[in-house]
Every structure is written in structure tokens, then in C-alpha cells.
């Protein structure tokens, strides 16, 4: 019997994999993809509770999360492209133009 606890554990594990990816990879594109993993983990949690309470509000929230993730991916990749044109790197350790 699959309870919402199982879905919450899956969501927590996916969330932690995303957080590890954000903190330990130095390629900015991989960091952005780990952020998408985090957002997917949140969506799994929302849909699991929407299924438990038989109310579609969780799915409506998940649709908004997907819309915001799409907007954020577009703008973030635009920033990466603009930065790459200035300094030919995608390594976050080398993105230190504002460091004093």
C-alpha cells in the first residue's frame, strides 16, 4: 500500500539530490538542471497530496510551479549566454568579475 509518506520520501530524496548537484558541481548549466530537479521534487509532493485529499488544488499549484520554472530557465539561460559572451567560461569558480 503506497501511502503519501512514500511520495514524501521520494520527494525528499530527489530534493537532496538536486541540492547536492547545486552545491557540488561547478558547471553553471548542471547547477540550473539541479534546480529543475528540486522543482520537480516539490511538484511530486504537491501532486501526492492532491491525490490524497482528492482535490485538484495541488495540481493547479504544480501547474504554476511548472510555469515559473519555465520562465526562470529561460531568463537564467539568457544570463548564461550573456556572461559567456563576455568571459568564455561556464565554471562558476571563474565567474568572479564582481569580486574585490
Amino acid at each position, binding site marked *: 500500500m503506497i501511502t503519501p509518506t512514500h511520495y514524501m520520501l521520494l520527494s525528499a530524496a530527489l530534493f*537532496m*539530490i538536486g*541540492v547536492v548537484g547545486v*552545491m557540488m558541481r561547478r558547471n553553471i*548549466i548542471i547547477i540550473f538542471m539541479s534546480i529543475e530537479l528540486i522543482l520537480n521534487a516539490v511538484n511530486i509532493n504537491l501532486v501526492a497530496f492532491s491525490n490524497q485529499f482528492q482535490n*485538484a488544488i495541488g495540481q493547479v499549484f504544480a501547474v504554476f510551479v511548472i510555469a515559473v520554472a519555465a520562465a526562470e530557465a*529561460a531568463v537564467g*539561460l539568457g544570463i548564461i549566454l550573456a556572461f559567456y559572451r563576455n568571459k568564455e567560461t561556464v*565554471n562558476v569558480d571563474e565567474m568572479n568579475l564582481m569580486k574585490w
Partner: protein
Amino acid sequence: MGQAIAFYTISAFILGFALMVVTTKDTVHSVLFLVLDFLFVAALYVLLGAQFLAVIQILVYAGGIVVLYLFVVMLVNLKRLPEVHEDPHRRTRLGLVLAAVVLGELAMITILGYGKPAPALANAAAAAMPVSGNTQEVGWLLYTSYLIPFEIASMLLLVAMIGAIVLAKREL
């Protein structure tokens, strides 16, 4: 029984592909593992009875966002892998141990702290819904109770589109 098998299989694939996304050295392989991860998350949504959300996930995430990532990976056109030189101050193993500890904490909170769900929660917005089916349910909520967030989300997408075009142009 079948639902349990499906859940464990799909979640094993989701977590496995997520680990591959985070640990692969090649960026293109990472993006392809992300596509597979999104497809299996969509399968999980179908298992949960959210068919509309599963289709939206495939259309927007696997079909739009991942294609955007692939375009940027090709435009950036890495000639050398950027992670060749290891930072001597980076404590990889400590980071992994701390992440495992946080995951264990989350798991304990989830297992031990999850009590009885609140009973009278579902009746608020589902009062006068003359439709049936998952897509109609989500659509009804989006166009009646949550119309303002819907319009704001469309404004957000417009602003993001303009911002991405301005950021990626060659000359302003």
C-alpha cells in the same frame, strides 16, 4: 500490489537518473538523463491520477525546457570540460556526508511526524463543479477560483520572454 510495483520501479528510475544528472561529466549526457527523469516523473503523475499535469510536464519540461538547455549547451560549445582542475579547498566527502545526514533527518521527520490528515479540507473550491475528469477539474479551478494567479503567470511568462530576448541579443 500493481501500484506498489509501479511506484517502486518508477521511483527507482527517477532517483537513478537524477543521480546520473548530477554526477555525469559530460553536459550533453546530463541533459539527456534529465529528459528521462522528467518522463518518469510524468509517469508518476499518471500513477497519481493527474493526467493533465503529466501531459503538461512532458510538453513544457521535457519538450521545452530541456530543448532550451540543449541549445545553450551547443551554443556554449565547451571545448574542454570545465571541471578538470580540482579545487584543493573543496570538501567533497564532507558535503556528501552532510547531505546524507539532512536526507536522514527529512526521512525521520516524514516517517515519525506524519499524523492524521485534516478531514474537511476538500470541500472549499469543489462546490459547484459540473464537470468530471482530471483535465476538466484542473481547468475549472484555473478559470474560476485561481483566475488571478493564472493571469499573473501569463504576465510572468511575457516578462521572462522579453527579458530572455534582451539578454541574449548581440547588440542592444
